[in-house]
């Protein structure tokens, strides 16, 4: 079974984020970077599927600057078999639509043999192979926690001509590995959907608890194949990618306004309640 996971490197969610003085981007100084948490659920799920099947291949793909290679190596340490890094200065400023087009090209070209041959499939010819396709299941996070676009996964499904299931909190694979049953979180409740493979799913918090890679796996991650591709390698010209091709432009970033201080009411409970009520009334029709 060919499993593809698309992931993005984002600033550590615990980090103190400040915009650059010109407000064009987040100040990268001193930031630590992590795999987008939703993408990490997708990755963990792919690895678990592979482990349950006792075979298959997990390929991690990212679009991002040089530093994003560390996210791929972390994915390799967690259990991905190979990684594809789409990178280059011309990709700077790509919006979700451009990112999805790049990913679609990389994903549909299938396993590469450029940087070492892929590990042999243990389950015999997968559906992907017998179909001549490159994958059986593509997994993405439902969105990235840095820009909250929540577009790339769904756009990617469209480009690949795949059905997609969003915000998946539980994923089961049929015994013949041809169908998935996904529990999708919606505003109204959980939707349970069955879907033939190939398909694309986006992961929601709760899907699983991602593992910590062992230290030894971290140290060995460099021994696994990591292929670096440019836009040109994927058949895109420089004006088809990056800010030039993006219809979405970031005009400026600013930190959210500081919250006002809180008022402590120090009095006997009955008096405190009266005072609280008065304040709430004054605050402009709260009650």
């Amino acid at each position: 079974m060919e499993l593809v996971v698309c992931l993005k490197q984002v600033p550590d969610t615990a980090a103190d984020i400040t915009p650059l003085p010109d407000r064009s981007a987040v100040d990268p100084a001193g930031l630590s970077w992590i795999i987008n948490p939703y993408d990490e659920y997708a990755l963990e799920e792919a690895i678990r599927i592979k482990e349950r099947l006792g075979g298959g291949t997990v390929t991690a793909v990212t679009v991002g600057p040089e530093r994003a290679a560390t996210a791929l190596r972390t994915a390799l340490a967690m259990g991905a078999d190979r990684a594809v890094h789409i990178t280059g200065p011309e990709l700077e400023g790509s919006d979700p639509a451009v990112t999805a087009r790049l990913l679609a090209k990389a994903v549909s070209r299938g396993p590469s043999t450029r940087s070492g041959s892929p590990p042999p499939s243990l389950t015999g010819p997968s559906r992907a192979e017998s179909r001549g396709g490159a994958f059986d299941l593509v997994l993405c996070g439902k969105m990235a926690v840095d820009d909250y676009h929540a577009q790339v996964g769904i756009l990617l499904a469209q480009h690949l001509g795949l059905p997609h299931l969003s915000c998946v909190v539980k994923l089961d694979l049929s015994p013949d590995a041809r169908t998935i049953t996904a529990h999708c979180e919606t505003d109204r409740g959980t939707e349970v959907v069955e879907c033939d493979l190939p398909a694309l799913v986006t992961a929601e918090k709760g899907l699983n608890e991602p593992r910590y890679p062992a230290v030894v796996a971290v140290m060995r991650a460099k021994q696994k194949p990591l292929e670096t591709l440019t836009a040109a390698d994927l058949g895109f010209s420089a004006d088809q990618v990056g800010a030039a091709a993006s219809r979405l432009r970031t005009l400026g970033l600013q930190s959210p306004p500081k919250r006002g201080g809180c008022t402590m009411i120090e009095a006997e409970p009955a008096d405190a309640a009266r005072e609280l009520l008065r304040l709430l009334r004054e605050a402009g029709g709260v009650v």
Partner: protein
Amino acid sequence: MDFTFTEEQVMLRDLVRKFVDHEVRPLAESIDREKKVPPELIKKIGALGLMGLPIPEQYGGAGVGEMGYCIAVEEVSRGCSSTAITIGAHTSIGSMSICLDGSEELKQKYLPSLARGEKIAAYCLTEAGAGSDAAAIETTAKPEGDDWILSGTKLFITNGGIADVYVVFAANDRYLGPRGGITAFVVERSFAGVEIGPEEEKMGIRGSSTAEVHLEQVRVPGENVIGNVGNGFYTAMKVLDIGRLGLGAGAIGLSREVLDLSIAHAKQRVQFGQPIIERGMVQAMLAEMAADIYAMEGMVYRTAWMADQGMKFGCEAAIVKMFCSEALGRVADKGVQIHGGMGYMQELPLERAYRDARINRIFEGTNEIQRIVIARALAKKGSY
């Protein structure tokens, strides 16, 4: 000269940081209160590979060298000193004794389960009459056929209460003393005659196990001698060099935690109408804490690099031990001071940090002994 960590080292640091944030720091308060690192936590730490960091991969370790070991210990120490000390005593003095001088058979026999954290190691040198004067040990080793019979009592043994494997230094020849008269043995807890005393009640690192190890006519097979008979004191001293380095790494971690908490508190705590970080006296304390940490970081990682290059670093390890433990003391003291009355309360981790810091000036050789080691090296070389 390149001071950056490799990509693997950054990944290792991030991995341990994440693990500590989620799995260790939240337990630190209860580890201190319950005076125990939960065995389940040690299991998780072992599964991650943190119980065999510098042990070569061929013996089940992670093979990350002293550099990788220090990076990880610094991170664990940020979250919980007791846990860091448990890892440190197990790895850099317990297992390391076998790793450095043990025979191939001995390494094969003990290191894999130790490196995976399935078994815990302890290092047993100190005795009632042999603290700083470590060569004065009275635990005896008498040959009997191919075996050795060990008798004596080891004191203040870190991991004593939880270990499965004890590296015991015993006198096989009182007359020769440290020069040929002390031998290192691997003693299993299950050997007849091994008895472990009750847990000691301590000022700090209360979650770390400290106990007496009694040896009553314990029969140890000859193959469990580490290195050559009579060379134990050299093993003991070499291992302590490594232990002192790791101690420095732990001191960085705890110091950094204290400084980060202090910065946050100083920015948020308002007195006289403004955050106290606007006050010169608080600023001075924060600046001095940062300078101490910067110095610690520089010397620990430079010395770790020397160790990984195979260079001699005994004098430097003593400097690291002395400086970092004292710098940590200064940092912890200022951290409590910046937090004021709250810093003295058990509700905040500053009080624990202050208690946990103190042992570092005592164990792995008191700082007075470190000064002797450093001064002797200076006298021998005539310059630095």
